[in-house]
């Protein structure tokens, strides 16, 4: 079996690849566009990226020519619930904390909402459970690619473990009615996860998802909003437990703690709200990403919470971030390179550099300009969307 697999790999490596010629490539590895760019793709990976003048097209390779278009890494949406193609199987709310649950068993790959997402330039989503309980289970990093088999669409399992800090998971007449109870329980589970990580792999199967976090294999992704909860999340997970955490939503008045948050260099995954008007208390119209940036935060991704905001409007979340005060490059990074780093998979996706997966979006204009549509999307080098077969978004 192993032998056969190795043969298959060899065969793949010697097969011809694709040459992608574009007007501009944004590698997102550095804040610099490459004009008249060429990308070589083979075996699902990127082989070369650079100015066309410096890269020869290997003989026999298919050439995809989009001389007026922009190529950039596929969108990585860390907060998405569209894994079933609807709102089904979102949240089994048995106990306040169910870290043993996982979305992996509910994923419908290449469902209609994922097809929409691809037409909007998204190639990877973190398919996570809901926020009805404090700990609702492990999410799955899913590739938006044309397959009926879940395993072929899974980029990494677990993608993250979902925690919800306040609001939605509050329970009435039970432990967890207030933040005192909820946060006490979360710390209890953190202690148990840390102990399991120390005791060895699969020593405590119920908290194996948590043990993986202490082994730095994947992060927590925490639903949290408001200045108290956002900073409380950072304190509990990042500063005290010292585990990787993605702070998700960050909305309402979260930005009021933004300078203190900046000092922690926390990973912020902002949205689906783009702004605050009422929670800050002074009737000021505040763009969230822009405000976090202004106060010194640099590690920011956007998200849709799809289907709260449709999966295909992921790039538009960054468009609005820029409209409401975020700088252009921060906004561009918030859709691919930043979220890939936050979810601890930057060695596979999020940038156009040799060795990474060939998840590439080709668009008729700048990524965040909604006047131009996405034209072609490749996932692991395979074409999964082509506008010439009909514009989907």
């Amino acid at each position: 079996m192993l032998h056969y697999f190795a043969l298959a790999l060899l065969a793949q490596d010697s097969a011809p690849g694709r040459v992608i010629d574009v007007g501009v490539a944004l590698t997102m590895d550095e804040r610099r566009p490459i004009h008249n760019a060429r990308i070589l793709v083979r075996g699902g990976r990127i082989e070369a990226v650079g100015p066309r003048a410096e890269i020869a097209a290997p003989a026999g390779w298919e050439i995809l020519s989009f001389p007026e278009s922009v190529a950039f890494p596929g969108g990585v949406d860390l907060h998405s619930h569209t894994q079933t193609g609807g709102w089904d199987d979102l949240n089994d709310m048995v106990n306040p904390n169910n870290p043993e649950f996982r979305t992996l068993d509910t994923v419908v790959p290449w469902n209609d909402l994922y097809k929409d997402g691809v037409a909007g330039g998204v190639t990877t989503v973190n398919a996570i459970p809901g926020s009805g309980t404090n700990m609702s289970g492990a999410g799955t990093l899913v590739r938006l690619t044309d397959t009926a088999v879940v395993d072929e669409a899974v980029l990494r399992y677990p993608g993250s473990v979902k925690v919800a800090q306040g609001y939605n998971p509050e329970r009435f007449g039970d432990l967890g009615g207030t933040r005192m109870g909820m946060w006490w329980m979360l710390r209890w589970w953190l202690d148990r996860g840390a102990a399991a990580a120390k005791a060895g792999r699969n020593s405590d199967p119920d908290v194996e998802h948590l043990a993986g976090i202490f082994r730095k294999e994947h992060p927590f992704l925490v639903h949290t909003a408001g200045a108290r909860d956002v900073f409380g999340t950072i304190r509990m997970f990042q500063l005290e437990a010292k585990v990787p955490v993605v702070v998700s939503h960050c909305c309402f008045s979260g930005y009021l703690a933004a300078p203190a948050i900046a000092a922690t260099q926390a990973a912020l995954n902002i949205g689906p709200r783009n702004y605050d008007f009422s929670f800050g208390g002074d009737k000021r119209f505040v763009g969230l990403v822009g405000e976090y940036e202004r106060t010194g935060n640099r590690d920011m991704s956007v998200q849709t919470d799809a289907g709260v905001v449709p999966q295909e409007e992921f790039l538009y979340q960054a468009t609005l971030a820029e409209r409401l005060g975020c700088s252009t490059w921060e906004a561009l990074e918030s859709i691919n390179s930043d979220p890939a780093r936050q979810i601890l998979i930057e060695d596979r996706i999020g940038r156009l550099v040799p060795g990474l997966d060939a998840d590439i979006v080709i668009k008729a204009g700048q990524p965040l300009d909604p006047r131009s549509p996405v034209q072609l999307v490749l996932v692991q080098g395979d074409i999964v969307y082509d506008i010439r077969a009909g514009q989907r978004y």
Partner: protein
Amino acid sequence: MIALALLAAAAVAPQDGETVVYRAAKVYTADVAGMINHGALVVRDGKVVAAGPARAIAVPSGARVEDLGMVWLVPGLVEPHCHIAGSLGDLNDGVFLANPELSTHAVVEPNNPYLRDARAGGVTTALLIPGSGNNVSGFGTLVKTAGDTVDEVVVRAPGSLKVAQAGNPERYSWGVGRALMNWNTRDTLTKGKTWAEAFRAGDAEFAPRYENFQELGRTVPISVHTQIYQVVLMTITMLGRDLKLKPFIDHGEFEAWTLGPLAVEYGVPLMLGPRSIHFDRRDSHIQGLAAGWRDSGGAGAVVGYNTDSPVLPEEELSYQAALGVRYGAGTNEDGLKGLTANASKALLIEDLAGRLAPGLDADFVAWTGDPLDPRNHVLKTWIRGELVYDAARDGRRY
């Protein structure tokens, strides 16, 4: 306090007879000159005096020069179909299937919060029309989006006659179908038109029911709620070709875009929206609405966009054109022209608003960049030369 308020107003409103020269990195005239780099706009007494390259425009003696810097200066956007310039509770008195005696002039509400948002979205002129619950729901009113009294904001009353050809009016009662509706609309319009012709010739008594028909089809158009191929066909042929009452198509949705050649032949403008796309269920294909009209042979038609606010927020008018362009309706400039000069053409106010050309109202807006790109926003809006929205002064609203 009053004195203070007066002082504040004085700081904004140009003095009578004062000439102001605005300079901007880009001036888009929506006129023959199109886009001008390093442009200048000369304004006096609420009107445009000149627009052109800054180096070619002489500063009149005594004029104040205001350099706006790195902005796009663009004509105020013109909304051909809205319901927010009046009280929303008075949308539609659907007494009969045809109520041509009614007018939104009675319900104009200057300075309501929707209009303040409209100014923050760069919209300076809007047609306030009644709803589409009956075939002829009354006359609309053309207004500016700033001003304190009804008289101040009204540009033209009547602004248009609102006709709804099918769809919503079918809910009027059981048994209302297109045969009855088309007869009813044709009957009402024919009677009104006949009366107006006779009245102008001195051959008819004054008839309150048809009072507003005097200028209909001359200086006042019909704004027609119409969509679906067969219904739009009737709009073009019955209202345009046969009755010659200068209709323009509002909505134009679903598969009606196949009528592009006919819209061109009979000169019927297309004010599209609020839907920007048609989803063809047979082949799972998204058809951009404006792109469809254009590609089916309607490239020569006057194409613009509406929000049908409050269906879509009035401040999102510019985004309607952005979506048009996204789905293939020409260039950015085509989109911008659709929001300005083309909408004015449909409303028969092309000599009043929608372009930065001598003699037109000085309605203009300073944007951080191309209005069609939603990463940009409005910095300042002027109506008839007066600064009516300033994000820095008033707080940014959108």
